[in-house]
C-alpha cells in the first residue's frame, strides 16, 4: 500500500502453496494443516485462504480516490466486473445475496457472505477483502483455478472441465474486467522502489514469526510506518 502512487491493479499467482490467515485469525487454528503449506498473515480480515493454482488480484489506490467512496459499493463494482469477465470464458456466477451467515468458518471459502460470488452449486468462487488506512485503500481477492479440498469452494477448471493455464486465462479475463470497471490501464511491472519495499516488508514483517503468529511487527517499525 505504497503512499502517493497511482491506482494499481495487479494479478499474481503463488510460487509455493501458501495459507494466508485473515488479519485477526489465530495461528494455532491452523496447526493441524500439513506443513507443506507455507503460512502468511494478510493485512486484510476475513477467513483463511489456501493459495495454490489460483488467480489473485489486488487493487490499491489513495483512500480519497473516486473509486473508493463507499467501500461496499466498490466491493460490488469489482465483483460485478469479475462476473462479466468470467462470463467471457463461459463461467456463470452470481452474488450470493441474502442474509449474513450466523456461523463463520475459519476458511474464507466456507463462509458465504451476501456479497460473495458463488457458482450455480452454491460454492464460493471469488473471495475478497479490503483494508483501509488514513492514506491508502487495498482490495484483494482470490479466484481459484483449482478447488482446494482444504478450504472448500470451487475452481474455474472444475467449472469448465478443462485445464486453464494461468496466463492465458488472465489475458482472456482482463479486457472485460477492465472495461466493466470503467478503467483505463497502462501495463507495467514493479518499480525499483516497490521491489526494495517488498524486500524490506518480507524481512521485517511478512516472513517474520512475530507477524505470522502474533500480528506483531515492532521490528523495523520505522520502515513499516512509511507504507502502512
Amino acid at each position, binding site marked *: 500500500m505504497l503512499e502517493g502512487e497511482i491506482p494499481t491493479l495487479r494479478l499474481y499467482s503463488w510460487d509455493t502453496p501458501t495459507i494466508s490467515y485473515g488479519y485477526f485469525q489465530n495461528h494455532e487454528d491452523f496447526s493441524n494443516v500439513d506443513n507443506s503449506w507455507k503460512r502468511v498473515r494478510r493485512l486484510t*480480515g476475513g477467513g483463511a485462504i489456501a493459495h495454490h493454482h489460483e488467480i489473485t488480484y489486488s487493487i490499491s489506490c489513495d483512500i480519497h480516490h473516486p473509486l473508493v467512496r463507499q467501500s461496499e459499493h466498490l466491493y460490488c463494482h469489482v465483483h460485478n466486473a469479475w462476473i462479466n469477465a468470467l462470463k467471457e470464458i463461459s463461467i456463470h456466477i452470481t452474488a450470493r445475496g441474502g442474509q*449474513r451467515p450466523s456461523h463463520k468458518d475459519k476458511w474464507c471459502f466456507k463462509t458465504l457472505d451476501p456479497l460473495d460470488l458463488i457458482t450455480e452449486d452454491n460454492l464460493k468462487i471469488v473471495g475478497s477483502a479490503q483494508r483501509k488506512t488514513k492514506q491508502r485503500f487495498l482490495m484483494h481477492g482470490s479466484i481459484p483455478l483449482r478447488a482446494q479440498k482444504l478450504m472448500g469452494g470451487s475452481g474455474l477448471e472444475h467449472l469448465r472441465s478443462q485445464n486453464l493455464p494461468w496466463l492465458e486465462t488472465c489475458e482472456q479475463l482482463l479486457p472485460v474486467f477492465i472495461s466493466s470497471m470503467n478503467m483505463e490501464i497502462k501495463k507495467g511491472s514493479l518499480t525499483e522502489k516497490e521491489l526494495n519495499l517488498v524486500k524490506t516488508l518480507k524481512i521485517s514483517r511478512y516472513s517474520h514469526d512475530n507477524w505470522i503468529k502474533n500480528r506483531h511487527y515492532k521490528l523495523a517499525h520505522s520502515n513499516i510506518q512509511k507504507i502502512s
Partner: protein
Amino acid sequence: MFPENLKYLSSHEWALIDGDTATIGISDFAVKQLSDLVFIDLPELGSDISAGQTFGEVESVKAVSDLYAPLSGQVIEVNSHVADNPESLSEDPFGRGWLIKIKVTNNAEVDSLLDAIAYTKVTEEAEH
C-alpha cells in the same frame, strides 16, 4: 448534526474532553460506513497512544480499518463490553459505544481537532 460537546478527527474518531481525561470513540457516520462490525482491537490499559497515530483496529464483514487517536495520552480505561460485543457499538456510538478513556498528556492538541460544524462538512464531502 453531530454532538456539539465533542471534538472530531476527519478520520471519524471523536473525543469528549473532561479536564485531563478524554473519552474516545468513533462517530455514527463511521459506524454506518463500516456496517457489520465483527472485531475490535483496542490498546491495553496503561499503554500510551499518540495523536494522529493508530490506537486500534476495527474489522467489519469485509474490511479492516485503523482507529486514530485524536489526542496523546495514557489509556486508563477500555470499554470491554464493546471489545467483546463489537456489534453493540452501532447501538450508541456517541454514548455506551465509547472505546477508550485516556489521561491527556498534551492539552494543546485539542486546538487542532474539528468541532461539530467542521466535522459535518467532512462527512458531507465524503458522501458526494
